[in-house]
């Protein structure tokens, strides 16, 4: 075992992932109750209500969170819900800008009245406490073209202590993220919280659902299930058209197959490794 070159395993993993890219067989997955509540909570919001969407991730975890982020933006804008975007991770705002620039025109939404980008705010827990205490104290200007936030019509109805915000949604990749939002905002002010998280953080969330967390889409599995729910009444993918949410869904479903292949490989490696271990242990 000591002399075994682990690069052979690296190679095996690479081959499995790359070779499975040829599979084109999207598989539907039934949504879990947690993803269903994430979807239902957004569905239940009245039109015109205001939601705070926090981007708490960076490129390292965008692979897991970006599909849900895009789908959530589609979902909110399609239901005519207005969105205040914030971020507690410095590398997140470009995703917000790109996402809304692409999706908002599809639903005829205008900056300033239908969505605003307040951008990154430093300070982790303190930043969240500050946003909850007073959005106007936390931000001087928006992040798009440094408009003073007093000039953004969307924020007219927003008071301190989260008043006027119907739901807080966090796209959470770790610290700071959903657990800090629950502590600094959910515990202090009465605002329901939803979240989409990376796989590593997902097991933590079960301890907060349903009392402190109204729903969550965890990991690539949760993302795929949510994408299926959101795209139910969307037109099917058209070959040659620019990327649509349906394409993202199909792509995610296909990713799950590659994922399955890689999981099998890992289970096989654990099995073989253990068998070797137990057989050689006897002979030692």
């Amino acid at each position, binding site marked *: *075992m*000591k002399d*075994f070159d*682990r690069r052979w395993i690296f190679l095996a993993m690479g081959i499995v992932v790359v070779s499975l890219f040829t599979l084109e067989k999207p598989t539907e997955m039934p949504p879990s109750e947690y993803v269903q509540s994430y979807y239902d909570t957004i569905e239940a919001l009245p039109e015109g209500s205001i939601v705070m969407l926090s981007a708490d991730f960076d490129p390292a975890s965008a692979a897991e969170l970006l599909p849900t982020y895009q789908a959530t933006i589609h979902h909110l804008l399609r239901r005519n819900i207005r969105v205040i975007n914030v971020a507690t991770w410095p590398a997140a705002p470009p995703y917000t800008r790109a996402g809304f620039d692409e999706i908002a025109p599809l639903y005829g939404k205008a900056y300033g009245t239908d969505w605003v980008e307040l951008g990154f705010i430093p300070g982790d827990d303190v930043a969240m406490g500050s946003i909850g205490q007073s959005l106007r104290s936390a931000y001087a200007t928006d992040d798009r073209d440094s408009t003073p936030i007093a000039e953004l019509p969307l924020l007219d109805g927003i008071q301190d202590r989260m008043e006027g915000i119907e739901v807080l949604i966090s796209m959470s990749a770790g610290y700071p993220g959903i657990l800090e939002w629950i502590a600094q905002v959910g515990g202090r002010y009465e605002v329901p919280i939803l979240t989409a998280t990376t796989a*590593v953080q997902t097991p933590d969330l079960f301890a907060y659902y349903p009392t402190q967390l109204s729903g969550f889409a965890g990991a690539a599995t949760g993302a795929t299930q949510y994408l299926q729910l959101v795209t139910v009444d969307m037109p099917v993918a058209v070959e040659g058209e620019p990327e649509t949410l349906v394409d993202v869904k199909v792509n995610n479903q296909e990713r799950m197959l590659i994922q399955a292949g890689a999981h099998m490989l890992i289970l096989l490696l654990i099995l073989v490794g253990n068998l070797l271990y137990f057989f050689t242990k006897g002979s030692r």
Partner: protein
Amino acid sequence: MFTSVILAVQAAAETPLIDVDKVPTLVAILIFGGLMFLFQNQAKKGKEIPIRRIAGLDALDEAIGRSTEMGRPVLYVPGIDEIKEIQTIYSMMILRHVARKTAEFGTPLIVPVKDSVVMTFAEESVKQGCMDAGRPDAYIADNIRYLSNEQFAYCAGVAGIMTREEPAANIMLGMFFAESLILAESGFATGAIQVAGTAKQHQLPFFVAACDYTIMGEEYFAVTAYLTREPSLVGTIRASDITKILAIVLIVVGVVLGTLYPDGTKDDPGPLQHFRAFFFAEPIAETGK
């Protein structure tokens, strides 16, 4: 719990000075604070508070002993976070204990660090440990090594030490992130006895699967209290224990009440609702069955 009292006082003063929803938290902080002071004072006055031994702790001595027998060094990885992280501070206290043991046995101790500030702390701890053992000559400055500030580069460096210098014991205590997996695996492949500990639960699966002994979650802080016998640490652990007993009592009573009297009526909301209103300041629901 004291919600009704506070409500009465506030009604009398006609200004809502305290947010009723937050009263249970206030009470929790006050109770915990009171217990903490009580037990810290007791510990300072020399009252014996027992701390149970933790399996991973016995393993520390065993691992150092085995290294001595084999004539190979001990490797101590103090996590990768900065000194502001409380786990790193605790790791330095444990390092002092480990250094004392290795100095007694005359076994070399290698400490690779990721942060330059942690390095000065590590040097200090190892020196102190050698002094404690009465062997100041056992301190070797070159064995406290700053490798790199980059996560994976540091990790590759530690893996390199593991394969080249073949320590017989790898001790990994502190704050770990994604690199825990690589460290534990590299160490396992060299056949060293591995003791790991962290309060960061996300990394514990890898340590449990690949290390011989794992100090898990809160055990990590108890180990520090056990080794240092610092009265304030011991008192804090005692206070946490008592607070947990209170939590357990609340949970048990709540679950039993909820099971025995699941439904309230409109006129009588039922014992569970009264219990929750009393302890958690939750409003009694209007709609009974």
